[in-house]
């Protein structure tokens, strides 16, 4: 990571008070994204990846407590005044949410929802904003964009709505786009199209992107770096090619093994990860993955491993019993 750092998340903690006690959704997370680079954040449901994205956007629930630093473009977002933060959001920091069925306002036209963002940040008049909206819709692959401006979200399919959401996110040429499981709610046939669209626009606009997903397969060809999260912590972090060549954390290996393989024989049982993630309101003393880990030994249950640099540059993992290179080759 020698080029200029755009976003750096430093020691971020998110605590959510619940009736069952404090829930630590994000636990001492450090991440950096360089300008124009892509970071994949991977983990199963409830691992804190969405809370992390909301923490970066400063869109956490009211009751949530956030500590640490989120440096974006030289400014600490946690210290920013609401007005300055508002000017940043949508302008240089944009987001695409998971479910396009709920993330667009059902009572406003597509045009209104696009144009309001443009007018808010770029001070365009109605004619210019409309023209740019049509260009944006065309750029994200929406046919007959002029007519779509007058339509409401329910008149579009899920894939089309997600394209609209992407057009809104791209509208002001942001420096960083956070895509929070952008394809999870879509038909499988649409997923690849949307991911390719995001990758294409990211390269074309030289925009940095955080791609949040539960699917290691999604990040494989589309990101520069991957961070694997488990129980609120980053447990392995590496440049994407290095990770897939030589993963060290048993959880990463288990995640990859749980993906269905196209060349597997029919009726091959899927090696799902047994057990469930730990209850986040009852933190474990040792490694959070130790109860489900097939390599765990005594130390793993009593001591928390720290995220530390491995032998190759930029590759970090938090594990006392890392998989060695030769053993993971077949994964």
């Amino acid at each position, binding site marked *: 990571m020698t080029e200029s750092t755009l976003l750096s998340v430093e020691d971020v903690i998110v605590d959510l008070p619940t009736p069952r006690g404090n829930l630590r959704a994000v636990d001492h997370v450090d991440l950096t994204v360089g300008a124009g680079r892509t970071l994949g954040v991977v983990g199963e449901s409830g691992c804190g990846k969405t809370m992390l994205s909301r923490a970066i956007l400063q869109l956490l629930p009211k009751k949530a407590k956030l500590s640490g630093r989120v440096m974006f473009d030289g400014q600490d977002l946690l210290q920013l005044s609401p007005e300055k933060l508002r000017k940043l*959001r949508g302008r240089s920091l944009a987001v695409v949410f998971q479910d396009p069925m709920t*993330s667009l306002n059902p009572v406003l036209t597509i045009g209104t929802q696009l144009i309001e963002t443009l007018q808010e940040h770029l001070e365009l008049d109605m004619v210019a904003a409309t023209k740019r909206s049509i260009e944006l819709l065309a750029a994200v692959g929406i046919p007959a964009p002029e007519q779509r401006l007058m339509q409401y979200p*329910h008149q579009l399919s899920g894939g089309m709505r997600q394209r609209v959401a992407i057009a*809104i996110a791209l509208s002001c040429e942001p420096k960083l786009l956070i895509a929070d499981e952008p394809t999870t709610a879509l038909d499988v046939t649409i997923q690849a199209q949307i991911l390719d669209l995001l990758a294409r626009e990211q390269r074309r606009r030289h925009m940095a992107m955080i791609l949040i997903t539960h699917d290691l397969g999604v990040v494989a060809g589309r990101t520069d770096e991957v961070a694997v999260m488990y129980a609120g912590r980053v447990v392995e972090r590496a440049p994407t090619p290095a990770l897939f060549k030589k993963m060290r954390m048993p959880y990463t290996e288990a995640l990859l093994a749980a993906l269905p393989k196209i060349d597997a024989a029919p009726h091959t049982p899927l090696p799902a990860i047994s057990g469930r993630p730990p209850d986040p309101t009852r933190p474990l003393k040792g490694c959070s993955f130790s109860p489900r880990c097939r390599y765990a030994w005594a130390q793993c249950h009593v001591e928390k491993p720290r995220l530390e640099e491995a032998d190759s540059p930029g590759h970090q993992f938090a594990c006392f019993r890392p998989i060695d290179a030769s053993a993971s080759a077949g994964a």
Partner: protein
Amino acid sequence: MLGFVARRLLYLVPVLIAVSLLTFLIASLLPGDLAYTILGDQATPEKVAALRQEMGLDQPIWVRYFGWLGNILQGDLGRSFRTGQTVLQAVTERLPISLELMVLAQVIALAIGVPLAIICAARSGGSFDRFMTGTAFGMLSVPTFLSAILLIYLFAVELRWLPATGYVPFGEDPAKNLRFMVLPALTLALAEWPGIMRVLRSDMIATLQEDYIALAKAKGLKASRILFVHALKPSSLTLVTITGINIGRLIGGAVIVETVFALPGIGRLLVGAITTRDLIILQGVVLLVGAGFVLINFIVDMLYAMLDPRIRHGHA
């Protein structure tokens, strides 16, 4: 949209027939003979029989119903046997008063309830929200006659700012008319704003949890735009419903308020018709009020469609 309007209008026909049938039945089922009521208890049986025949009261009920319905369709709702005034005359004379009262009351109630609801929802759980929710709850339990008397005491007796009772037609002297209307309208509004506020507040709080509000924030929109454009519109369906119900209810006049403030509106016309057993006026007015109620609900349906495109396109 045109198809939607036509469909809704078609629904009105059976509803209006049911309203007319019920109105007629209720008036006919009231104890006592209309002929006796008109002629008084000194009437000879021959006279009564003659009048019954003249009025068609000796006919079977369904013949009378269709005769009445036929007259209505020709614009004849009947004539009071006491004052000689037609139903239409009596209603057109008094309806403007009740309508003015209704409109003023709604405007005041919405002007109080809607902004308070938005502020409370934007800061739900805060001290202002808790205070206003409590106040609204308290106001809901104050009966109209009590707030009417308290308002008269305060503004007419103590401060002497406004007249206590009376009425001047708007066409005669608009300023004076409004002075007479303020207290009755305020009395009605005081009873209605708490409902408006509570309904809109809870709908807004639910809407503010939606993903599209989070996205609106992530787009860097101003808080006022998020509240008024993104949140208010999808939250206002229940508000429109209860405002429609309030309006429909007030078309029939506000009996208590009109009585306390001596306003000659529809409410007092109805009460007068009941106490003098003026059945023709009674059934005519009830029919018109019922039709007005149905019409308001039709307008509410149209407003739904305007507020939510999914209803307009038949998706919801």
